[in-house]
């Protein structure tokens, strides 16, 4: 579970590549949904994220009359740090986890809980109405998705008998440290997608919430003229967008590790499989933004507490029962 500096660099490159892939996928899906013809013009598509970054760096970084300077500067930086911690808690290939600690799931949950602080500060510190409203809204959103997020991860921790993501992956690959490992529906190693079917859909909803993407793009919504980012420009806006994309990549990576088996896969090296599965979840989440409208916050809160949490609890208890029944 320890790793050298090269593993750390691998995590950084992984997240950076994921951010770039998210940007390209976003544009690609936008074109597909617009029916503008995605086939042509790959060059523009692939260069576009760099051009946009350059544009943002060439713009002035404005401020408002009386912001909270320190909090405003802290928000995107802390968000990026939390995203890196979350991404690092997943081992990219067997034996190469940089921050794959014994309590990886707890670390991930803690990092995602602090995202609430970052988004709130980002919106509130600008001392402008749309930002402030966006920040307060996100708190309601965050309090609602935290529970399903934590519960489904508990569900995947049950067969692994451990809170480390490395063990979660190994339990899906059938390689538990204890030897034979518990049998699960007759199979020793099976993806959690199949043996805990409620898990991945619930996790995706929570992941959309924590990265405020797609239908849960509530703090930065169009009805607030950009919300928490309405007063931000220049390098500060670039930092915010990068940090948010990093969170998206991190939750995709964790989802791939918890439900799709992480680095397990035939023939090719583990890192490749991690990347492919992360990319798949990333694509799903980015595509949802183009097809699903932004939800009403109140409706989401009610549904989250009244439907999603009970479903997550059912998921956990069914997983528990299955384990007990199958236990040798």
């Amino acid at each position, binding site marked *: 579970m320890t790793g050298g500096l090269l593993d750390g660099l691998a995590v950084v490159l992984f997240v950076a590549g994921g951010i770039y892939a998210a940007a390209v996928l976003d544009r690609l*899906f*936008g*074109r597909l*949904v*617009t*029916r*503008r013809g995605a086939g042509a013009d790959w060059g523009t598509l692939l*260069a*576009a994220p*760099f*051009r*946009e970054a*350059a*544009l943002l*760096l*060439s*713009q*002035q*970084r*404005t401020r408002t*009359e*009386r912001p909270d300077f320190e909090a405003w500067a802290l928000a995107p930086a802390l968000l990026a740090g939390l995203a890196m911690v979350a991404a690092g808690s997943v081992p990219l290939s067997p034996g190469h986890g940089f921050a794959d600690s014994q309590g990886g799931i707890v670390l991930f949950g803690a990092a995602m809980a602090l995202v609430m602080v970052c988004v709130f500060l980002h919106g509130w510190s600008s001392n402008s*109405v749309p930002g402030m*409203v966006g920040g*307060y*809204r996100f708190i309601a959103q965050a309090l609602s998705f935290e529970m399903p997020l934590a519960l489904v991860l508990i569900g995947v921790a049950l067969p692994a008998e451990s809170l480390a993501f490395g063990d979660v992956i190994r339990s899906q690959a059938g390689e538990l440290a204890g030897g034979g490992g518990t049998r699960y529906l007759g199979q020793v190693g099976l993806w959690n997608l199949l043996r805990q079917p409620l898990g991945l859909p619930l996790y995706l909803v929570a992941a959309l919430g924590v990265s405020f993407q*797609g*239908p849960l*793009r509530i703090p930065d*919504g*169009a*009805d*607030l*003229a*950009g919300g928490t*980012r*309405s*007063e*931000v*420009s*220049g390098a500060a*806006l670039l930092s915010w967008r990068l940090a948010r994309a990093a969170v998206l990549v991190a939750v995709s990576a964790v989802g791939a590790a918890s439900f799709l088996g992480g680095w397990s896969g035939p023939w090719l090296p583990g890192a490749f499989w991690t990347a492919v599965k992360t990319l798949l979840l990333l694509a799903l989440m980015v595509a949802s*933004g*183009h*097809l*699903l*409208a*932004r*939800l*009403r*916050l*109140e*409706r989401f809160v009610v549904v989250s507490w009244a439907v999603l949490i009970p479903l997550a609890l059912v998921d956990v208890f069914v997983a528990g029962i299955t384990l007990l029944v199958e236990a040798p």
Partner: protein
Amino acid sequence: MGLRGSARRTLGRLAAGAPARVFPLPGRGGGVGEALDRLSLDPRLRLVPSPRSANVLLAVGRPASRLLRPAVRVHDQASRPRATVWWLPPEEGSGEGGDLPREVDRLARRLVRLLGPAEVVRGGPQEAAEAVVRLHRELLSGARESEPEVLPDEEPNPWRGVGPHGQGGEGMMGGTPYGRPMAMTGADLRDGLQLDRLPVRLGPFFPPLPPGLALDLELQGDLVQEVTLPPNPFDRWAFQEDGWRGDPFAAALSEPVPVEELERARARHHLRWLARTLRLHDLSALAERSLRLAFSAAPDREREEAVRRLEKLLRRTRALRWATRGLGCLEGEDEVSGLGPVARAAGLEEDARADDPAYRELGFEPVVTGGGDAWARLLQRMREAALSLELAARAGDRTIGPVERVEGPRGVLAPGQPPPSARLLERVPELLPGLEWGDALTVLASLDLDPEEAGRGPLPEGSERTRQEQGGRDEAGSTGEAAA
């Protein structure tokens, strides 16, 4: 520093290839909205929701005096490097952007003096796009200096209070810290809790609102407590006849208009409205698809199919329905009668087109959706757009008009009657209180308001010929009375 300069230049060259970021400042003129929508389809530029992210400010159309100061303030809020373009799209029915009337000219000169636009463009969306992109490239590559701020660099208010150090003051305010007071307390709408009431002044250029609408809200938390409408910036004093010129629906009141043209205009209007609404709900890709449909040159049948497919997509992905269901219910015959899609979405089966012989030949039947909420209005307008395209495909040479009442895209247009937008605008202060911010904006969008149309005032009493007919009828009536 050489390193900094060369870094800036490389970045600038890279950035110049990105789509230009444009913040629109729509002015008056019936074709402004449509021109902007056409422009937004150009892949070389992108309309942004906030001037902070914009490079180029695009003032479109003729200036209205109440829009000048807000435009200047928005100009100064944009981040550097920035430039302004003033675009005068060709007026409908008057050829290439002709000479402006004298009153407009005075305002125009004031606009030019205040904003100092880098370029004034007269022409279609193509020319405007070229100008915007050119400015964008020049700004970013360093060939052109950013425009300076217009307003003086002064703090809004000195920090003023009661005590010798500027502290102290009344209640929560304590003077004007950093130039502005703090919000005062007020009772909440529903439970009377005394917390701060935040007055929010949403201006004419706030993208989530219908273009040109200004609102004064009082918020407690994110719930709207009270709504006041400031004076309409488009209030007519000089442009009454001008406002309705070029509108094919108003033209049908006094001369024959081909049904095909009318229905295509209706479909275009509804699809443009759909694009605005979808953008409000963070579905910008679908909004662009809707805009492309609105302006596409494909045959009407194909477009009708595409609209129906879009409707099915929006219905199947339930999210939009959850976001709009049950909001802004407008039912009741006296409230909504004559308001076109709003009335039909409430279940009233009324459509002025059903009375017309040309439409009856085509087998026209009004589309009615029940429910009266924002979702019903969305479905209603999509279905009407599809129906219009179908009618346009089958219309052939038929014409409509001159008639006494015309079914416009927002409601019934009749001489002497206020336009539908004016009636809807009156309802806004009672519809919005109690709604959460996002819901309030959804309701506003679903009403399809146009402050410019509302400001045009009642339709003129018809053309010269109709006035003569009216005069003739009056004479006959009075002699009849005298005889009796």
